[in-house]
């Protein structure tokens, strides 16, 4: 697939998810990266981020829900999250290597672990912050726990959960760059190479590329979060 087509597809996707302005930002940003001859690494980075974020969310959101519903679970998971977040991110790279060898798989594994805490934390927070009165209202009408979760708690927690997803994506992006040290491809590798060869120019270009990818991903997810706010933009 030629880069220009991919860029158009991405822009349309951004339009659908985040609206016109986000779509324009996406198109211009990616066109610029193409122009910098960084298209291939950018694509690799985005694939890595998407894969590891999806996995992190699939694991993180259910854990977050469990934490939000049960104080006891929250009390055991909480300290683990603190540890995951304070541990220097490079450390996750080490245990991944003996299991998966050098390369993208290890990078993904480390990224998943590193980026999971915010979504767990914010999902739990979102559910715990649902007003007591609404929980009571839901109970008073005879909701089962599952109905309460699906119809009341999750919809009301959604904006907070979206903020968590946004954070997770950002962390995943930063980790994917670091994971270049164990042989992950993408923009990180370019940075890593420029460090080793002391090519400040290339390093700077790649740095800007990473920033652009970050901005695009951030805008798209933030717009999505805004749209899911209760009685939000659609109501006016």
């Amino acid at each position, binding site marked *: 697939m030629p880069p220009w087509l991919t860029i158009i597809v991405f822009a349309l996707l951004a339009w659908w998810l985040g609206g016109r302005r986000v779509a324009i930002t996406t198109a211009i940003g990616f066109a610029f990266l193409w122009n910098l001859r960084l298209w291939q690494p950018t694509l690799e980075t985005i694939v890595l981020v998407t894969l590891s974020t999806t996995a992190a969310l699939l694991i993180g959101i259910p854990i977050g829900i469990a934490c939000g519903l049960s104080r006891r679970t929250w009390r055991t998971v909480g300290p683990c999250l603190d540890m995951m977040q304070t541990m220097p991110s490079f450390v996750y790279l080490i245990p991944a290597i003996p299991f998966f060898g050098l390369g993208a798989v290890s990078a993904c594994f480390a990224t998943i672990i590193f980026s999971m805490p915010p979504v767990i934390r914010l999902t739990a927070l979102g559910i715990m912050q649902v007003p007591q009165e609404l929980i*009571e209202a839901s109970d008073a*009408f*005879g909701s089962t726990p599952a*109905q309460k979760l699906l119809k009341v708690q999750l919809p009301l927690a959604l904006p907070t959960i979206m903020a968590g997803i946004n954070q997770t994506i950002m962390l995943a992006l930063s980790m994917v760059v670091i994971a270049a040290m164990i042989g992950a491809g993408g923009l990180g590798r370019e940075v890593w190479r420029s460090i080793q060869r002391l090519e400040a120019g290339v390093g700077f270009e790649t740095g800007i590329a990473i920033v652009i990818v970050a901005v695009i991903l951030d805008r798209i997810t933030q717009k999505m979060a805004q749209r899911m706010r209760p*009685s939000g933009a659609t109501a006016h």
Partner: protein
Amino acid sequence: MALLKGGEDKDAILAKTSSVVALDRVSFDVDEGEILVVMGLSGSGKSTMLRCINRLVEPTEGSIVVDGTEVTSLSARDLLEFRRSKFGMVFQNFGLFPNRTILDNVAYGLEIQKVGRRERIDKAMRSIEVVGLKGWETKFPNQLSGGMQQRAGLARALAVDADILLMDEAFSALDPLIRREMQEELRQLQQKLHKTIVFVSHDLDEAITLGGRIVLMKDGQIVQSGLPEEILLQPATEYVRRFVEHIDISSVVTVGRLVDRDVPTVVVSQTIAEAREAIARTPSGVAFVLDEADRVIGSIDQATLQQPSRHSPSIAQLMRTGIVCLQAATTLKAALSVLVSEPESVAVVDSDDRLIGSLTTRDALAALAGQPRRNTGETPNEGAAEWSGQSRNSRSTSYAIKPSPGLPLTVPT
């Protein structure tokens, strides 16, 4: 629990075990189709009590029976079913789901019961109409005023068509004008729907407006329960007296409550001699004349009877007609103007114009001063039982003062 049974009070238990006694030996009945108002200041346990009824709060001990079902022993699954079929609940801060439209909010209870979409919308729309929110169903709660939000809350409770409405300080968060309006509407709704309503409130005016029985709570215990006027006239404790102090007694208490039942009467068919004898025993020297059906048709005094008469007249000829009667359900406030214009005692009659007793200006003043004659406690008040059934859900002031039969008389109300 052991401490409580051992007679320790709330503060002592709090100090010893750091657990709060929310409810302590609370017991009351709610009849089908009545509004029961649970009153008390904040922290008196009234909301906890309400939540015990549908077990949003688990009572540690005791029993709650609804329609013969012991709620406290229901399994989790049965409890859900029971809540769905029996209870509608309205919350102080409305408890509407901000992510749902008014329609979806109102339909929530039905959605939980897996009612089909079309039927759900039908029913929800009907109850939206009942509370007067038609045209607003596609809005979100934050686009509505407080009063309208609470209407939606009420509609949601009505939509499930439950027998029992639990209303937790439902109108307390509204401003006074809207609150009045909502109280009035709830009363009117109640006349149509005949739900059983347990209404928690800290506002005595509200309790009186709603017109049902009142249960007054303090520190998790019931201090007094009964009709508003009973509580006003015979406060059980100093606390109750202070609680009701600012209420205008005259607009709540009905004439029937104050009436002196020990009243001399003469039946119209009696002879003059019999009447003389009867009147001689009374201190006032005045008696009401009744017809055979106990209806008041006039009054007669000793002086009239003592007059020497040539052609032995009947009582019907001698008696003074055109006397004013008060309906027992008239409020004292409305009766005052009548009392002022009558030098003697005024006859008080029930809804069938039968005599219940008499009332003097002095009695009325005594009641206003907070020292009513304590006759209601002693006599099993048949009169009260008769009209309390009516005044329960319909405000007593809606009963006009009626003149005794056959006597054209207009009374300013």
